[in-house]
């Protein structure tokens, strides 16, 4: 169906030419699903764009062919390509929130392709759109077809997009991270839908994702990309259960697994090679614990059984496990003091958002006053040195809860006690000591560091602010902080844009630690990071907890990460806390139906093979 042969793609950038893909070859059989997985910068999305003939102006293709059903896509002119896209290849993007045109009705957008490519009348296209919406499992398709995108939830929008891609009855569907922007329960529904469509229509799919659990559920075959090369390719179950290439081993080892508590996660050190001038040998060699002198020679993708692996030592490495960090590190003397009371105690905390905040002219009363309670009567305690995990889907109020505890959002009622101090009901300027003892780490490393300040200035400010050290000692303190988060001292002179995402997140953690807090709210601290970097940050947070006795409220939508780091887990749903308990109990024996639903929706990389569609059909809404 789709054959990519020796494809190389380069991008011109102001910094020089980047080789995004190097000699990629991929064959997708009719009716099969092939997944491309890799971290950011691996070139997986470039493959999709190239296959659709949608590469941007800056891209050049020095070599390679892309054959779709025997026709060379690159030999086609613009018009032929456009026709191919409209009729035989469908594309679904990552973000259902920005792809739909907000000023057109859903039905019109779904049927658009039919009008342009099949010569349907607008009315017939609209009628067909309703049928398609019905097929992708949308309840009451007539009314949804008349709705505008903002009236639909994320999952509904993604369904509508899939319906739109299906409209022209394509033979090939290319999906670029189709579920990444969605919550796990919605993700599970979309995956079920795709699986069902594939069976019914015999559709061929290229599925691009960074999430190995998702890939395992949907694909027959998987190709793992690293730095623009395929490094391992084979049947999904084989590759995920018994990876051969060291990078694939590392990637799989870095993922926390629910129900298997480990001391520390395995991490892949280092970062991607500079793609302006990629190494001639193995591109992973510098990060590879198994590297040998042979690794510096050019590596080819070799056949190994029914698998292809780009590693000279593949045979020898077959059974070798990725090295695990020592279970009990040198921090034997844990500073936790169980006899002391909770460091944070929150009782009956409630926060309501009305429609109007602040001053507005009210010409007429609003007919309906919509109020939402993102935090509804929540009571939690966090003991010193404890990690309380907080999970929930988007909109469940977990971030608002974290911000309310720190009084960064003003709660409406309830009491908050931090380090023995009554924090609720005090004026903001009376919170001086609380601001020292409670800190926060944010989700987005690009947004959490002021781009105009050096890392040294960023870390010095909290020390200055709370007069924690005489000014002469501040540089030494900054070096200590950098050392604590394992960054070299010369990073003090850098600006945020000169660092990678993981390094920025380390600085964010160091800044929170600068005030010597006893409690830190970690708001999705690893959600913006790649798997291998995520593991290193999670390990760092765990080490700091053991060493400094800090307590965390660890907020995340990623249940497996929370299950790994947390001592206790709280589950939030629509502003209410539905379950709280010891991490292993909540993970292995959830009591609340919502927790069960959440846990069953998480796509896993281990355990029994994913259930077939028939068994799950009842859950497809």
């Amino acid at each position, binding site marked *: 169906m789709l054959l990519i042969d020796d494809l190389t793609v380069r991008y011109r950038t102001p*910094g020089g030419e980047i080789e995004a893909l190097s000699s990629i070859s991929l064959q997708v059989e009719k009716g099969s699903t092939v997944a491309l997985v890799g971290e950011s910068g691996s070139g997986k999305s470039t493959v999709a764009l190239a296959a659709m003939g949608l590469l941007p102006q800056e891209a050049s293709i020095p070599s390679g062919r892309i054959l779709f059903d025997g026709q060379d896509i690159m030999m086609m002119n613009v018009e032929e390509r456009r026709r191919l896209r409209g009729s035989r290849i469908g594309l679904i993007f990552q973000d259902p929130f920005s792809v739909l045109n907000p000023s057109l009705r859903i039905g019109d957008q779904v049927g658009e392709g039919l009008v342009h490519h099949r010569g349907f009348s607008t009315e017939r296209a609209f009628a067909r759109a309703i049928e398609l919406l019905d097929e992708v499992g949308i309840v009451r398709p007539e009314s949804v077809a008349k709705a505008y995108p903002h009236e639909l939830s994320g999952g509904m929008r993604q369904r509508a997009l899939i319906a739109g891609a299906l409209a022209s009855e394509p033979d090939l569907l290319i999906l670029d991270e189709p579920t990444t922007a969605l919550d796990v329960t919605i993700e599970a529904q979309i995956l079920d839908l795709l699986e069902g469509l594939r069976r019914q229509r015999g559709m061929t799919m290229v599925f691009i994702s960074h999430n190995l659990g998702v890939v395992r559920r949907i694909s027959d075959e998987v190709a793992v990309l690293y730095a623009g090369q395929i490094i391992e390719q084979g049947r999904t179950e084989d590759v995920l259960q018994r990876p051969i290439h060291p990078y694939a081993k590392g990637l799989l080892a870095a993922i926390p697994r629910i129900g298997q508590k480990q001391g520390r996660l395995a991490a892949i050190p280092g970062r991607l090679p500079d793609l302006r001038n990629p190494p001639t040998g193995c591109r992973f060699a510098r990060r590879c614990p198994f590297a040998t002198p042979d690794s510096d020679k050019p590596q080819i993708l070799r056949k190994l059984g029914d698998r292809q692996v780009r590693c000279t030592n593949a045979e020898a490495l077959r059974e070798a496990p990725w090295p695990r960090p*020592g279970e009990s*590190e040198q921090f034997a003397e844990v500073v936790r003091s169980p006899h002391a009371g909770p460091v944070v105690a929150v009782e009956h905390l409630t926060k309501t958002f009305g429609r109007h905040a602040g001053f507005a002219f009210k010409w007429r009363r609003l007919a309906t006053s919509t109020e939402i309670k993102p935090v509804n009567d929540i009571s939690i305690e966090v003991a010193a040195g404890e990690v309380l995990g907080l999970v929930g889907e988007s909109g469940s109020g977990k971030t608002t809860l974290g911000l309310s505890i720190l009084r960064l959002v003003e709660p409406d009622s309830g009491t908050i006690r931090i380090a023995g101090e009554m924090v609720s009901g005090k004026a903001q300027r009376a919170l001086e000591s609380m601001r020292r003892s409670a800190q926060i780490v944010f989700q987005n490393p690009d947004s959490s560091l002021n781009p105009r300040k050096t890392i040294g200035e960023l870390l010095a400010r909290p020390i200055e602010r709370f007069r924690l050290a005489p000014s002469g000692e501040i540089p030494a303190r900054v070096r200590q902080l950098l050392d604590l988060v394992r960054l070299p001292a010369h990073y003090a002179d850098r600006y945020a844009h000169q660092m990678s995402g993981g390094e920025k997140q380390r600085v964010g953690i160091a800044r929170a630690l600068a005030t010597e807090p006893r409690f830190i709210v970690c708001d999705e601290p690893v959600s913006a990071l790649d798997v291998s970097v995520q593991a290193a940050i999670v390990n760092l947070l765990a080490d700091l907890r053991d060493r400094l006795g800090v307590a965390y409220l660890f907020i995340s939508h990623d249940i497996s990460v929370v299950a790994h780091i947390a001592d206790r887990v709280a589950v939030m749903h629509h502003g209410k806390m539905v379950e709280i308990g010891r991490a292993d109990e909540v993970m292995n024996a959830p009591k609340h139906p919502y927790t069960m639903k959440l846990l069953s929706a998480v796509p896993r990389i281990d355990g029994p093979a994913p259930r077939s569609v028939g068994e799950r059909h009842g859950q497809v809404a």
Partner: protein
Amino acid sequence: MPASTPRSGSVAMSVDQITEAPVIEAAPRRPMSLQLKVGLVITGSIVLLGLLAPWIAPHPWDTISMRTRFVPPNATYWFGTDEYGRDVLSRLLMGTRLSLAMGVSATLVSLAVGIPMGLAAGYFRGWVDEVLMRLADVFMAIPPIMLGLLVLAVTPPALWKTALAVGFVYIPPIARLARSVTLTLANEEFIQAAKARAETNSYILFREILPNAWPPLIVEASLRVTYAILLGSALSFLGLGAQPPSSDWGLMISEARAFIDRAPWIALAPGFAMCLLVIGINLLGDGARERLDPRLKSRVTER
């Protein structure tokens, strides 16, 4: 860092690797656009001429000489002489200083008032925002010349008052820009982090937000300088700014108006000078905007 670090997979080694890995450097600076170069040359030379005026002016700018009235441009008087026999070129050069001083000081006034206004409105939102921005709307609703006239008509005219009046006229655009930049910056997580350290509002406004707001503000300000020069000259033309025998360009044009049929060079010289300066500063500002304003970056790289 030694590459022989035992590869145990612990976090510590990631640091060793980080230091080995190449730093992702910012993209090398793009070459300056033609627009920016031309703008820099024009503006730079006018500023230089203005600064050096007392030393390079070929004749005294204010000495009246009845024998040399209305001399057309020639080898001695390059731009001719005016109705009092004064050298137009010398007056023009001296007037450059006045126009530049006018434009720059008026813009400084707008910045000094507009930036805190915009920062406060964008950061505090709510009633502060409403009050400040509605105030700005009222200012904007009055035509600039009218507003200038209003300020100057009630007090005896003087150049510094003109600068102040012009500065006030251009507060709203600066305040609005500062506000819109602040609105986006206020949602950044580093502002939350500052709040989590109990930083004062003024620290957050001026030390966290303002440094990030400078690039668009500087560009806007440089363009405002040209408006200020034009408005200042217009007010001087109306007799509400610089007073004779000052050689302000607007005043020069105003005084030459009566002789426009007999000696057009007296009015044309300051007119052209003003055009050139305004074009130069505009090119400079637009060129700088393309380099500094991230919103336009994508468009630029597409070229």
